């Protein structure tokens, strides 16, 4: 992994429930802010990277920004792990000299257009029935007829199996999940761009959140939202004269399970244990300890993901996170995360880690030196620091 690649610019569109904007408009807004934050001109950008399922092509971005020579345009095909895949791809490309300033972006009208949390109702047949087809774990022919309509239901299956395996009582599980939700909702109250900035939630409020798929409530599931994120990754040349404090990509690692997108068909143990040992090995390579990490971004598609990731990343033993979460000794998802800031699939978590490591976060962790990111259910991890990798 390149030791010189750094994030020097971040940008976000306004986050909303109904943007009233096109995805390219939001993307360009976030990208322009990120380039300006980096102190660069659009003409300095020579790489553009996005999620494969983003609807905004690199060519349209280049055209709109007036970039005439794109040296590298890539898509990440790793789904929910893409935020780390983009960090890895950008850092590798910088190290290989294939580009000097790369913009990574994600733009998504995930509330006003495509709601991933709800199975869209396809056309009905002549008898008025809805036809479920294909092998999707949600709404496919083997799942849709049984009401398996969205990831929330799969997360319910995971949580129930997790509780039973570790002998965790429902009360203890609810207490742990409520701790995560209320903490992130509290963080969001101080984040002016967070969608839940005006909606703090205490534990009683959490208990009143409607049950969705046992043991998970609506408040345990990530938002459906509109918005865009972008960040700029550069090499030494630009990092040295950046007007912001560069945040270095120390390392990344990925363990993309081909089965992961099936959520439950092929795992004999739920929740799936993916990437166990990956973070330990990554930290070992750099002689960094878990205790050295000050702030953590965890892809919280559900609050329960925070528990599983803490365990799979080695911050505590298996089954221990329900106890540990009361006082985890590490700040997690300090922007509000996907539960309370915006659902931009981990890209917003990258931006928050950058703010923390610059010392500019609204919920600033004192002297934050190392930040770590875990996305896609611990399928991909990254280690960031404002210090140059030693």
């Amino acid at each position, binding site marked *: 992994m390149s030791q010189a690649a750094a994030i020097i610019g971040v940008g976000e569109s306004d986050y909303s429930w109904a943007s009233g904007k096109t995805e390219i408009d939001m993307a360009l807004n976030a990208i322009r802010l990120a380039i300006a934050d980096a102190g660069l001109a659009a003409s300095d950008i020579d790489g553009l990277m996005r999620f494969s399922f983003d609807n905004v092509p690199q060519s349209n971005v280049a055209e709109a920004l007036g970039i005439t020579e794109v040296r590298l345009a890539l898509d990440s095909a790793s789904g929910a792990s893409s935020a780390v895949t983009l960090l890895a791809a950008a850092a590798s490309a910088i190290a290989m000299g294939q580009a000097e300033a790369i913009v990574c972006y994600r733009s998504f009208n995930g509330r006003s257009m495509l709601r991933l949390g709800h199975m869209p109702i396809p056309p009905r047949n002549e008898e008025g*029935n809805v036809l479920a087809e294909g092998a999707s774990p949600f709404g*496919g022919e083997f799942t849709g007829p049984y*009401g398996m309509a969205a990831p929330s239901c799969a997360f319910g299956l995971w949580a129930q199996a997790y509780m039973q395996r570790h002998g965790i009582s429902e009360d203890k599980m609810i207490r742990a999940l409520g701790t995560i939700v209320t903490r992130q909702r509290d963080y969001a109250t101080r984040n002016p761009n967070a969608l839940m900035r005006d909606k703090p939630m205490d534990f009683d409020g959490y208990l009143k959140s409607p049950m969705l798929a046992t043991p998970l409530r609506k408040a345990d599931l990530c938002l459906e939202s509109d918005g865009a994120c972008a960040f700029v990754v550069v090499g030494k040349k630009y990092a040295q004269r950046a007007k912001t404090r560069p945040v270095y990509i120390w390392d990344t690692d990925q363990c993309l399970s081909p089965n992961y997108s099936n959520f439950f068909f092929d795992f004999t143990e739920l929740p799936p244990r993916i990437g166990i040992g990956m973070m330990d090995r990554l930290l070992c390579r750099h002689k960094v300890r878990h205790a050295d990490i000050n702030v953590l971004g965890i892809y919280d598609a559900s609050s329960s993901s925070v528990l599983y990731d803490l365990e799979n990343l080695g911050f505590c033993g298996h089954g221990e996170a329900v106890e540990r979460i009361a006082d985890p000794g590490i700040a997690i998802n300090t922007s509000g995360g996907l539960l309370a800031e915006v659902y931009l699939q981990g890209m917003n978590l990258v931006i928050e880690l950058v703010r923390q490591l610059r010392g500019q976060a609204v919920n600033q962790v004192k002297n934050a030196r190392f930040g770590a990111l875990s996305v896609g259910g611990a399928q991909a991890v990254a280690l960031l620091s404002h210090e140059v990798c030693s």
Partner: protein
Amino acid sequence: MIIPSPSTDTKPYWQAAAQGALMLRYCEACATWRHPRHTHCTCGNPLTWRQSSGKGALLSFTVVHYGLNPELAEQVPYTITLTRCAEGPQILTAMPGDHKTLRCGMAMTVSFDRVTPTVTLPRFQPAPA
């Protein structure tokens, strides 16, 4: 109602269900059972259909209380179950109602629910003691 729309590959599964049989995929070459959505084994061999015992163990479950779309809002609460068949593949089905007393690991057995004159859904439920 949400009903399956079989492909050419999966039609035999639903036809068998209408006859009261749960079919799984099977690889003759490496003697491995596979989920009905697959057409080929990872070894490359095309899979055949073979009848399951219809028995298994509950891997997990969740009770859905919240209508995720208008169609499902009329059905809540319902209990989604994931059953690991004795043969290995994991089949997801659901039971109407709130079955919070289910326990992971309990014995399950399949039954067949004719939801329309032409559609029959396999459904796993706790095996009689």
